[in-house]
């Protein structure tokens, strides 16, 4: 029993089609609410964690422990004028932040979330090829960033967009190869290794243990995907002011900001799903979602620590690293995965 079927049962007095349409509608609303809560939580967590690491207190004025600070900031951003630069390409400039945000929500829709006590399965999309779908969805966000960079007619923005392209090209190949290794490993246990739910469920031992190299490559690629330090060359604040989002203000900027934090959470969740067993846990399988959240938050904190302590890498060195180190390493990892799959049958 998952959320969708429950909703459909709830609307069953109406006709079959209407019930399912309503069920999907409500599920999408739940999803957007979930993503919003995640974003608010992430930004609050980041600000508090950053403050404590830097010997400060962080937001503590609006609401208890500053919990309402994000509401205040959101209101402030929404109330601000969204300045449109003079030489912009109008339509791409306006839709670029939306593309980033939609890509984020879509990616969240594809992830499997596991069970949660009385609600049952929280997974939204049931597809045989959800791995491919997921990586297609997270590839949407860079399009928005590149559009933003090119359409705002700002030299910093164009440089940021160019850097973003160079970065994406150099890390996505190793990332995909390390995912292929996972699919190979999973294919020994399940008939549908491209289905994310099956891929996650087939981890009796988390894939991260035999696939340490893959985990490392994937984690690095995910940092680059979410583009925070050390791989934030695209919007490096001390070099390119703010990269592709230089010309944005108000709520449009807010969407890029949310996209950044959303993709940190998304990437941590993907690492925990693919490599750390996801919603598999030692005790009751009812608490799968809780296990997933715990693993994700730990990974998020590690990601924040990386962000706060490591300087930015230079773009040429990163491209070098992608092609000269990550790619060969991920191919070696693929071979190891093949040997394990054939020989050990893990």
């Amino acid at each position, binding site marked *: 029993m998952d959320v969708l079927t429950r909703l459909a049962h709830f609307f069953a007095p109406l006709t079959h089609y209407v019930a399912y349409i309503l069920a999907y509608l409500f599920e999408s609303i739940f999803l957007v609410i979930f993503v919003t809560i995640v974003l608010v939580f992430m930004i609050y967590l980041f600000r508090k964690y950053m403050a404590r690491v830097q010997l400060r207190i962080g937001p503590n004025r609006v609401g208890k422990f500053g919990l309402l600070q994000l509401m205040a900031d959101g209101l402030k951003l929404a109330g601000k004028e969204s300045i449109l630069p003079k030489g912009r390409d109008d339509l791409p400039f306006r839709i670029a932040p939306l593309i980033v945000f939609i890509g984020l929500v879509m990616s969240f829709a594809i992830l499997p979330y596991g069970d949660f006590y009385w609600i049952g399965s929280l997974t939204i999309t049931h597809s045989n090829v959800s791995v491919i779908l997921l990586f297609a969805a997270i590839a949407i966000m860079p399009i928005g960033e590149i559009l933003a960079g090119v359409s705002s007619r700002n*030299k*910093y923005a164009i*440089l940021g967009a160019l850097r973003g392209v160079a970065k994406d090209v150099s890390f996505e190949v190793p990332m995909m190869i390390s995912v292929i290794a996972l699919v190979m490993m999973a294919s020994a246990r399940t008939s549908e290794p491209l289905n994310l739910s099956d891929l996650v469920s087939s981890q009796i031992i988390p894939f991260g243990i035999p696939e340490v190299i893959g985990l490392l490559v994937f984690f690095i690629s995910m940092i680059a995907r979410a583009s925070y330090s*050390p791989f934030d060359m695209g919007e490096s604040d001390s070099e390119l002011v703010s990269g592709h989002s230089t010309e944005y203000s108000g709520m449009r900027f807010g969407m890029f900001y949310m996209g950044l934090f959303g993709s940190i959470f998304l990437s941590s969740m993907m690492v925990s799903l693919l490599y750390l067993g996801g919603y598999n846990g030692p005790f009751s399988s009812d608490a799968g979602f809780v296990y997933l959240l715990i693993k994700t938050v730990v990974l998020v904190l590690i990601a924040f620590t990386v962000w706060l302590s*490591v300087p930015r890498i230079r773009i040429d060195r990163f491209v070098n690293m992608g092609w000269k180190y990550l790619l060969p390493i991920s191919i070696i990892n693929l071979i190891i995965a093949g040997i394990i799959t054939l020989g050990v049958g893990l």
Partner: protein
Amino acid sequence: MIQEEQKNEHREWTELNMGPQHPSTHGVLRLKVKLDGETVKEVEPIIGYLHRNAEKICELDYYCDSLIYFDRMDYVAAMNMEVGYLEAAEKLLNIPPPERAQWIRVIMAELGRIAAHLVWAGAFGLDLGMLSPFFYCFVQREKILRIFTEICGSRQETNYMSIGGVYQDINENIIYMIEEFTKEFPDKLEEIFNAFVKNDIFMSRNKGIGILEPDVAIQYAVTGPMLRASGIEYDVRKAEPYLVYDKLNFDIPVSYKKDNLARFLVRFEEMRQSVRIVKQAIKKIPDGPYFNPKAKKSLMIRLRGEGEVYARTESPKGEFGVYLVGDGGVKPYRVRVRSPSLRNLSVIRHLGKDVLIADLIAISGTIDLVFGEVDR
């Protein structure tokens, strides 16, 4: 139109304006950069956005009043600026400070040097994208500023020294505070140092980048840590000792690697040496008056000076020189300040050729710019 473009041989170069409002230009530096893709082909620094013409203001004021304008030149190391001005003014006015005042000044100058280098280290980390070490640097700096507040009542723009000595004597409590600071600071400094140099990416961003050859450095009149990182062992404190630096035991750090990392290491070693100086000075500080009675406080606007004096001191940024010309009146006839940052900045035209944008930022970070002093 198209023909015109073809005539222009560098038509593919992008012109980019960095600053004056840019996150990593340390105030109001404006760099006109010509880019070929990501590579910087030409840099032209444009300065003057913080220009107040302090030299003219000093001409219009009494000798004792000019001090506060020197405070505001290198505003992160106000004590060193005061030492620099008073070296010149006291020679011109023939009012040497008593022994105790000289020792106090040495302690203050070295504490100021540590504070200035800490600000630089934190800001340099920010330039490279390290968010946290900035705060650890500033926490330590705040302890120094607390000592300054305890001594003279102001945090940054101290106005502590005056012609003929210092305004207020230091007492037991302050000596205790400074001793405590020198005890616990070296460990914290090592921690900050490790937070930087253990990082592989930090090392790769700095090693072999921005190499400044010694002959170029001399051509551009570069001084201070930048010159020493290029392998020239030169420090005004040793070459032309002022105050009581000749009675103190300390080393001048030199590096022969000439790159960004060398400048980074030299500055950190300087901080360690400054702690060493403070530790010695606080023990040796003699009793006696802290103010020369010749410069009576009620008569301080009546001081007259004649002649020409040039005094050099070693400020955190480099050789800080003050050239005072007096015509026998109560106000100086001409004040000329040799600001080290200005000369150090001019070398960016040489260093910023054929480097990446990211490296240009790193190089301008190691120059250690404070715009109050560059523009004056």
